Structure formats: C-alpha cells, structure tokens
C-alpha cells in the first residue's frame, strides 16, 4: 500500500516536472535579477532618503548650536567686529560683517578647526529677530545645503 502510494506521488511529480516549460528556469533567473534590481533600487532610495534626513538634522544641530552661542555672546559682549573670532561654549563664531540689519557670522562647531574648518557654516539674521537666523550653508564633506 505504501509502495503504491509512493509510486503515485512519484508519477505525479514527474508529470508536474514534465509540464514545466523548457524556458522556465531561465525565466526564474530573470525574475530573480529583477527582484535584485528592485531590492537594490529600494535600498539605494532608502539610504539616500536617510542620508538626506541626516544632513538636515546635522544642519539643524549646527544652527541650534550657533543660535545658542550667538545669543550668549549678545548677552555678554554685544556684537563683534568684522573678522573677530569669539570662542565660548560649543564652538567658534567668526563675525564677517554687518549689512543693513543683517549680521553675518560663520560658525564652526567643536572640532571643526575654527575659521578654516570644513564644517563651518554661515548664518545671517536680523539683530532684532534672533530666532530668524537662517543657516545659509552647511555642513561636512557632503556639500549639501540645509
């Protein structure tokens, strides 16, 4: 009985095998390649999105550090002269000048090597509206703007 059942299963498997078209294995490989491409594309897009978000957050952190420092310096010393560097708290501010009601400063976060650091960003903003400072350019090796 068992042997008969086994023979039936084998016969079914053979018939199923014989019904598969000859090109089926090739088609499976193509499908696999398509799946791989889709997967790679999805992974790449996800990584790109996450990297952009990372750059945005890095820019936001720079802006926040700069705003904190600028606020503190305004409290302590008023505004600086062009070219003056102030080191206090988390980083360095380099005053580049004043135009109209705009204060132009460059901000170098800790470890960026001061004014020449590649991670230095630039801020501009009005005297009377310290929270409107806008990060003009950031950050790091990516060169992405925030």
């Amino acid at each position, binding site marked *: 009985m068992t042997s008969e059942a086994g023979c039936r299963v084998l016969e079914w498997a*053979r018939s199923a*095998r*014989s019904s598969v078209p000859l090109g089926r*294995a090739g088609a*499976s490989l193509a499908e*696999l390649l398509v*799946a*791989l491409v889709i*997967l790679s594309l*999805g*992974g790449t897009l*996800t*990584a790109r999105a*996450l990297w952009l*978000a*990372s750059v945005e*957050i890095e820019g*936001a*952190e720079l802006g*926040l*550090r700069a705003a*904190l*420092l600028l*606020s*503190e310096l305004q*409290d*302590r010393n008023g505004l600086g002269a062009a070219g003056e560097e102030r080191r206090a*708290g*988390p980083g360095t501010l380099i005053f580049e000048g004043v135009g109209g009601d705009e204060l132009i400063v460059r901000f170098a976060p800790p470890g960026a090597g001061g004014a020449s650091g590649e991670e230095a960003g630039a801020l501009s903003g009005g005297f009377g509206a310290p929270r409107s400072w806008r990060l003009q350019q950031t950050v790091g090796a990516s060169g992405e703007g925030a």
Partner: protein
Amino acid sequence: MRAGGAEVGGTVLELLLALTLGAVVLGAFVGVLGGSLRWSESLVARAEGLEVIRTVWVVLDEELRPGIAGRDWDVDGDGVLLLRAFRGVGRICGEVEGLDRWAVAYRGRRLPDPGRDSVLVLGDDGGWRSFELTGVDDGGECGQDPSHRSLVVRWSQPSAPPPVLIRVFESGEYHLADGAFRYRRGEGGRQPLTPERLAPGSVFRRAAGSGGPLEVRVELLPGEAGGGAGLFEWSVAGTGGE
C-alpha cells in the same frame, strides 16, 4: 518513465541554486531593512535630542529674561532653578473700593489666578514689593483698549505707597533631573517638559551673588539605536543683577 537521471540531477542543482540565491536575496533584504531601521531610529533620536535642547533653551529664555538675576531667579545648592515665572503685567488705573482693590489694565500670557499667583507691586516710590494675590474680578475703568483687559485686583496687604504697576507671577522651579527637563509649580509635582534623554551631568549653575547669567549644561544620552548623544552648554542672562 520519461525522466532520466540527468533530469533529476538538474532539478536538484536548480533547487540548490534557488535556495542559495534565495538566501542571498533574503539576507540582503533583511540586512538593508535592519540597517535602515537602525539608521532611522538614530535619526529620530538625534531629532528628539535637538528638540529637547530647543525646548530647554526657549523655555528658559522666555522665563528668565523678564526677571532680574538674584532677585527673580537663582540656583540653589542642589542645582534647582528657583524663579518667579512672570505671567503678566498690569498698569494701575485707579482705586476701586478702600485701599485694597485696584483697577488694572492687564496684559499677559494668561489671566491672574489667585490660587497660584503672587504680585510684584511697584510703588510710586520706585520700590518693588511682593504680595499674595487674593482676588481678581472683571471690571474696573481702564478704557476700551483691546490690547489689555480691565480687571479689579486685590492683594494680601494694602500697599503703603500708592501702586503704579503690578507684575503677576507664579513661584516655580526648573529641574534637570531624572532624565528630563522638569517644571514644578508651587508645591506640586515635577512635570517633565521633555522626553527622558538627559544624562546625570546636566546641570544649572550660577556663581552665588555675582548677578551673573545662568549657565546651562545639557548632556544628552544616546537613543536606543545609539545616536543622538551630545553636549550643549550655553548661558542665559536676565535683565540685570542686584
């Protein structure tokens, strides 16, 4: 029996190949998914950390700038920031009944609440005195200027010199404790204003009696995925010292 041995061997080979490739694809998929999840969690932790810093900064800036260091706020020995949290200001328009009720043109973040507020009263001698706020009613004769609200205000003792201006405040405390930036009003509990991301090294400092600014040091713990740690230090000055 059509199937020969070669055909069966080919099927096994295909099966092995399919299994191997399937494992590779699945492994790559799981790897990409896991990496993306960890990365995104790290980004969320960093964004949350920045939000914590921004909250501490904005709240302290708003609360301390209207006050005078040493008189309206100070840091005690345990690193607790004690302050008069000003909620509004009122110009005295006139006396209503007797000596202890005054019509006031009031402007502020919220209406005065006798259950929790006090008043700092400026007398016409130029001195400030603080009293308990005991009553607030609508009314008074302070004109129809939409920028203020006419109220009748009463405080615990009649002012000896006639009052000119009042500032309404609640007594509060800010803490950097138990992992969060917290506010405590009066004798109530400490309510967290931020997520619990602060390291024990986060402190408020102020040199005693110097009239100097408040120094804030906030150290962020890393999030669960490992990102978002950082150290932020800055200072906040009031309007002056005494």
